[in-house]
């Protein structure tokens, strides 16, 4: 009879987090040896795998070649077992195509493509398990994979999904919150300069709320960037220890 209470009076969300708290992020870089770069990232129950090839020569139709910078090619897919109901089509549907496009735009803004004219960078991301914030988790995983591949970027790109409940912005929505009637917004940020790489929103929101929501999203993204930074540093330590010996 009563829907879920997304935010209790005591300030706790369904899963026990406070409004601004992120889900637990765990990540590993360099999970595949054959690819140029790869990373696995878990943000709560949403798990994603990102693989990067390149930069390499243009494959397929040469006509897409750009003479001043590299072409970024993104492909997003979801594993058939990633949601509660088995997915019939893992990629190629309208949603995946749209998501691929969003990822492409995000990374075109972050990767220093002008260093590699006439070449191509491939980013493949797969959602292994979905529990809200798919886009953001993909961006975060792909950032790590791009770093692993050694491709220079202006900054980390960090993304986060935020929603609005009872005048309070909630950071890093899980699936139950996303489907609980929250108007949500996904934002990808280059945290150091504070530039927004991508801002995406489907729901209706009153303009008075937009600013607080974007503010909250930016804070959350900065939180994510700290975590990603730690992961990268730890990875480097491990690698340098191995090669140092």
């Amino acid at each position: 009879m009563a829907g879920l209470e997304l935010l209790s009076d005591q300030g706790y969300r369904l899963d026990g987090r406070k409004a601004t708290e992120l889900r637990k992020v765990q990540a590993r870089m360099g999970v595949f040896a054959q690819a140029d770069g790869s990373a696995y990232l878990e943000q709560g129950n949403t798990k994603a795998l990102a693989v990067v090839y390149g930069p390499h020569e243009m494959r397929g139709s040469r006509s897409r070649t750009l003479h001043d910078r590299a072409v970024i090619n993104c492909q997003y897919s979801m594993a058939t077992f990633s949601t509660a109901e088995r997915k019939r089509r893992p990629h190629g549907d309208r949603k995946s195509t749209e998501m691929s496009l969003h990822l492409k735009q995000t990374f075109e803004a972050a990767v220093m493509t002008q260093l590699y004219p006439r070449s191509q960078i491939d980013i493949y991301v797969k959602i292994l398990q979905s529990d809200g914030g798919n886009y953001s988790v993909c961006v975060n995983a792909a950032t790590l994979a791009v770093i692993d591949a050694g491709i220079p970027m202006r900054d980390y790109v960090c993304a986060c999904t935020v929603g609005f409940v009872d005048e309070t912005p909630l950071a890093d929505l899980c699936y139950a919150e996303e489907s609980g009637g929250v108007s949500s917004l996904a934002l990808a940020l280059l945290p150091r300069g504070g530039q927004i790489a991508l801002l995406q929103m489907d729901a209706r929101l009153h303009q008075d709320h937009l600013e607080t929501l974007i503010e909250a999203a930016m804070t959350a993204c900065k939180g994510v960037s700290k975590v990603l930074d730690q992961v990268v540093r730890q990875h480097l330590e491990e690698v340098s220890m191995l090669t140092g010996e």
Partner: protein
Amino acid sequence: MLKSKTFVKKTRSGGVMKIVREHYLRDDIWCGSEACTECKQESTELLKDACIESNLCSFPHYLVPDTNVVLHQIDVLEDPVIRNVIILQTVLQEVRHRSAPVYKRLKDIIHEKEKHFYTFTNEHHRDTFIEREPGETANDRNDRAIRVAAKWYSQHLKKFEADTDGLCVVLLTNDQGNKQKAEESGLLVYRFEEYIKSLIANPELVDRLALSNNDKNEITSSKVLFPEHLPLSRIQSGIKSGSFLQGTFRASRDNYLEATVFVQGEGEDSTEVLIQGLQNLNRAVHQDVVAVQLLPRNQWVAPSSVVLQDEGAAKDDAVEEGEEEKALKISAAEAARKPTGKVVGVIKRNWRPFCGMLNISQIKESTRHLFTPADRRIPRIRIETRQASTLAGQRIMVAIDGWPKSSRYPNGHFVRSLGGAGEKDTEQEVLLLEHDVPHQAFSQAVLSFLPKMPWAITPEDMAKREDLRHLTVCSVDPPGCTDIDDALHCRELENGNLEVGVHIADVTHFIRPGNALDKEAANRGTTVYLCGKRIDMVPELLSSNLCSLRSNVERLAFSCIWEMNQKAEILKTRFTKSVINSKASLTYAEAQMRIDDVTKNDETTKSLRGLNKLAKILKRGRIEKGALTLSSLEVRFHIDSETHDPIDLQTKELMETNSMVEEFMLLANISVAQKIYDEFPECAMLRKHPAPPPSNYDILLKAAKSKDVEIHTDSAKALADSLDVAKVDGFPYFNTLLRILATRCMMQAVYFCSGMDSDFHHYGLASPIYTHFTSPIRRSADIIVHRLLAVAIGADSTYPDLMDKHKQSALSNNLNYRHKMSQYGQTQAVGSQQQPQLQT
């Protein structure tokens, strides 16, 4: 930033879907106790010396009630004596799922500072979270969670034993199994009744205990009086298959053995099922949602015309209602039989606390008494109290706890006393409570949003507004009116046209969206006038002073200004925020006198004459279009200035000036409605009046036929025309009576949000679109309309809720409910105050 917690995955299977959710456990959830020195909490709810005089616990203690205690004993928990209570998250969530009204009341208690209720988020606390074990039911798990949390508290508080006189927690539960297990784990645990009875200083609390199952068995005889209610699953399948009907139970006011069930069919059509006799009524109470089964056609009956009150001494449960029921049967004529049925089950109870009087039992020592509710549609309720002698002669409130099948009456408990019966204040309180009119004094939070006195118009206000102080504006109202929300002006322009202005108090300048003052006004919905007393929608400072457009003071207004030609055709309409200075506050009679007095020729009078002339043309035009003029007997009380008792009743006489003001208000409302709808087609708040279904006119046609008068009801115009000619010689009131009857045939006019409806027509006014703009001091719909209009003309900024059609729609529903209830209340006040009048 990131609080990484060890987390436990909670798996919930619903159907075939497996839902996996994260569940974070935290170590930063504090205990909320003042005595604690360990938790890093900023503020505490629970007092250190939580003392209450009790036989059972002589030491300070916190109470931990379980879910069922909260659900059933909320009346006692609301008492100011009960303080320092820990509400566990487990309990709060269960209450939320099981009863929305109790949940709301519980939340209100938690918000009240003096009550010292603390919500402990035990489900996310690292030490108090438990997982459901295999084979354990959800209820058992929750009970265990409550015990674990209570245990945690008692261990946590033990650490500070030295300086708290042995502060501890007491678990309250009525569940035998739960109690036993709690005792085994070394917890202090009592049954709720046991604990309340132990409170030395407050014996009266015992009366307010809801009866638990064990107690009920004691009172009632073992005889089964009523058929068993069917379980919900069978009711649902019955409704699906069509063998049962679902509807709202409406008891008859005049006959306690009769009721109708209003079944809402698909779309517009709805049916009524008649229920007769105690057995068929089967313990349903007015407003319950019930399932009914139709009886075979040969058992159908007609509604009886007998008046039957359930009176006299408490009837023994065993006594048959034989005679009274027989009387019913005889009265059932062969013709006009209606679908008749019986109640087979109750889908949702709609019990609330009822006002009424106690009938003291004739047995002197008895503690069981019958309570007679003021609302005759509610059955008498049996309650247990030791204070019967004090409560006799008082108006009291009683809540129903249950109605076992072996009991003639429902069982209930005493909630509170309202005061001596017959005292004016008490009776008014009863009226207000019974009609759910919010009437408490405004809270400090609300008052804090009032402007600081002395208040004056600032230069900034002036700069943003049009200065209309030079205009000869005046207001015309009933005598004694202190909340003047409209004023008018009319002047001739150089081109020979007329400029007419309606100036409405600019309430939204003072009431800003979303603050406590705004919320309170939206909840109250309307100012209620009850026999000399006005229950304000907004605090008096605004209603009678700053917003009231009194004469010879500068006031902020929202003006609607038309340019009209001499034929009252609108050439131009504009809206503006303004500053006005009314030149005169007149009564209807004074205004009328000025218009009629040919020697007067001042500005105000000229303005009034102009208005009056235009109003007549406007009215004629409206009536030609088919607007109805239905008089209802509006009565006024003459209040004795010393005793404030009503000394005379007078039917309101209508003067030309009455309809003059009304005419311009209608015009302003229509102009504004059109404007806000054009600007915000999705979220304009409008008012509509649906055309009544033809069957509504039956009583009118029947009455007219008795005098051989024909009434046409095909359209509003036809109805208006035929009413005009409906006259009978030697019966001067006949026409008035018919008009009163016609009013009764009408549907309720309602507020709605334009994005949620497609039919906007206002039948009574014969206008395609209508809203309320002209009384923002006493109706909160007007406040919303003012805000919409202000945004439309760029005079104010918008805010999210204003543009949300679902929130608007919810608001309209509340306003419709408040208006309906306040109307009932006002009608009833006329009724109840009339009686002593006629006796003397």
